């Protein structure tokens, strides 16, 4: 099928691709915009832990593209890209459909890599999309149910052990979430929560090595140990083989085996293989782009997000960067069509945010101030919910989330179970108390003035009835 060659084709509906599409539509861009994406739903990756735990539901963090794009002029095509021909300005899909373009946006993200570890692709569960988060939830629930039914202690121990491979931000956030969540789930089934074991396996001795969050190392380490069930560390351990219920690793030149019921893999990502074959420069698979996010030899092609890198101003592969790049590309494509020159993109890093358990997080604002605990959690969720694409969707979800926080609906675990206090309600009570006490303090300090100024309200008379003022 031959499409109009005036079209702007966007490959990949992640943060970079989706934001480009939505912003082109918002800018009343007059040419056709086609978004090609293999999945039918958008995964809001930073909030996948909340999807796993049930703190947020699918409609909130794993919405359908159809709904997100309903009020826009974007054409959504659910299909997988098979090849890209930059010379001919053409994209071929697995269904053999062909799209010609005038502008192309490459936003295909990255892909999980298992570093050729035997058995990893078969038995380890990745955690990069809504679908995978839901699969992991089902698997964990199933394991807990098997555990409660078995009377063999060794088997139960295996079923209740979860290995998380990779201590980058995703591994740490997942470990913290599970170490709070699994004891509560198992406890509800009538099991002994103390039998749960969450093991974080890492190749190096350090967690968060080389990551933008590396300065949060101490906070993260403390949080991992402070969960309902403290997370066990297995560091300096290179995973060499994975089987259905065991992880084999090398530590201190010795081969050891850990029996586990669940294996989650967060250890590595690699570039999208489609992009490796393009006749353009790349840095370990990330396409090298100009500061305006264009490919140097193909100015009509833009690239952003995890699959692109500007060698002068390298940015970390994060959602925070990807969505800002998406917005900038929308602007530059429009400029290009209007005959203006594209503008170099300026990424504003607002600091980093991490989930460190149910209802606990850390917000590292502008890389200067660290706000841990429940306030950190609230800042993190509010920030991410603010980023949800599409304003109408966003407003609805934020309102839902706010009411959830206030009235504690949809909670996978009560504050009581976590031994915590709902921060917002606590502070609201405190504020109400201060407001309530103010007239009383006023009356005690300046009885005459209080009497005169507030006489019209009837409050002084009421209080005098309760306790007569000194004569």
């Amino acid at each position, binding site marked *: 099928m031959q499409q109009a060659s005036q079209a702007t084709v966007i490959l990949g509906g992640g943060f970079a691709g989706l934001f480009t599409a939505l912003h082109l539509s918002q800018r009343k861009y007059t040419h056709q915009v086609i978004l090609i994406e293999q999945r039918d739903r958008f995964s809001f990756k930073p909030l996948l832990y909340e999807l796993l735990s049930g703190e947020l*539901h*699918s409609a909130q963090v*794993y919405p359908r593209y159809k709904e997100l794009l309903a009020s826009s002029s974007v054409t959504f095509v659910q299909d997988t890209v098979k090849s890209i021909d930059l010379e001919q300005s053409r994209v071929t899909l697995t269904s053999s459909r062909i799209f010609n373009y005038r502008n192309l946006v490459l936003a295909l993200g990255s892909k999980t890599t298992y570093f050729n570890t035997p058995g990893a692709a078969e038995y380890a569960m990745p955690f990069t999309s809504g*679908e995978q988060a*839901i699969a992991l939830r*089902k698997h964990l*629930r199933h394991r807990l*149910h098997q555990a409660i039914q078995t009377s063999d202690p060794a088997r139960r121990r295996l079923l209740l052990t979860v290995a998380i491979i990779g201590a980058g931000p995703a591994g740490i956030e997942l470990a913290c979430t599970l170490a709070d969540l699994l004891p509560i789930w198992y*406890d*509800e*089934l*009538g099991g*002994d*929560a103390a039998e749960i074991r969450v093991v974080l396996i890492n190749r190096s001795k350090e967690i968060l090595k080389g990551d933008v969050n590396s300065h949060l190392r101490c906070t993260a380490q403390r949080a991992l140990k402070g969960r*309902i069930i403290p997370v066990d560390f297995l560091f300096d351990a290179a995973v060499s083989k994975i089987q259905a219920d065991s992880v084999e690793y090398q530590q201190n030149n010795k081969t050891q085996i850990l029996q586990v019921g669940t294996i989650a893999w967060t250890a590595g990502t690699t570039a999208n293989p489609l992009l490796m074959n393009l006749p353009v420069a790349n840095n370990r698979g990330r396409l090298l782009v100009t500061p305006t996010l264009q490919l140097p030899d193909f100015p009509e092609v833009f690239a952003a997000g995890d699959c692109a890198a500007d060698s002068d101003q390298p940015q970390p592969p994060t959602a925070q960067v990807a969505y800002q790049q998406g917005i900038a590309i929308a602007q530059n494509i429009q400029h290009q069509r209007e005959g203006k020159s594209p503008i170099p993109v300026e990424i504003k890093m607002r600091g980093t945010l991490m989930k460190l358990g149910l209802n606990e997080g850390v917000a590292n604002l502008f890389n200067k101030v660290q706000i841990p605990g429940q306030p950190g959690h609230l800042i993190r969720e509010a920030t991410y919910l603010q980023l949800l694409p599409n304003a109408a969707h966003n407003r609805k979800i934020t309102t839902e989330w706010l009411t959830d926080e206030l009235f504690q609906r949809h909670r996978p675990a009560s504050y*009581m*179970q*976590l*031994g915590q*206090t*709902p921060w917002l*309600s*606590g502070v609201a*009570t*405190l504020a*109400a*108390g*201060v407001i*309530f*006490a103010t007239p*009383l*303090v006023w*009356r*005690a300090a300046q*009885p005459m003035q209080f009497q005169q100024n507030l006489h019209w309200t009837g409050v002084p008379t009421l*209080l005098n009835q*309760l*306790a*007569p*003022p*000194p004569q």
Partner: protein
Amino acid sequence: MRYLLNLRTAVSVNRIIMGLFFFVSGIANYLNFNVANGFYQTVITQKLQIIGPGIPPGWEGIGPLPSLIAIPYAWLLPLAEILVGALFALNYWVRWTGLLLILMTFSIILAFGIIPAGTLFPNGAESFNKNILFMTLIWICIAYDAYEQKMSRRRTEAMANYAVNNAMDDM
């Protein structure tokens, strides 16, 4: 009967009553702040009694507190009673608010003594400072709060829930 014999209910009722008591005394202390022998005067002029008035001779107490401590204490104690009492009753930060309440109660015991009016044996006059009981009751609430996390809430319907949840799952 199930509710009456439920430990959580008993501790919750106890906690709410304790919190409410402090909340109301905070209000009362402000209302009767300036009256003769009212709250302010008591704090400014009262000696610390430790054991109690009269017994044994020579232990009548020390003080009164220097005004540098007594004045802020007098103004802030009722406010603290209102705020901390409300938080404690509503189950917010029970460990910390409980600890504060215990400290506040302890300061009151220091002021009025362990045996405020009569002898140690009940004799018509107030014989034993009830604040001591308050401290132990608050302690129970704090300890229960810590214990709550670890308690096993064995829910027989959990298996049924699982089946329902699974059927209603997102995908």
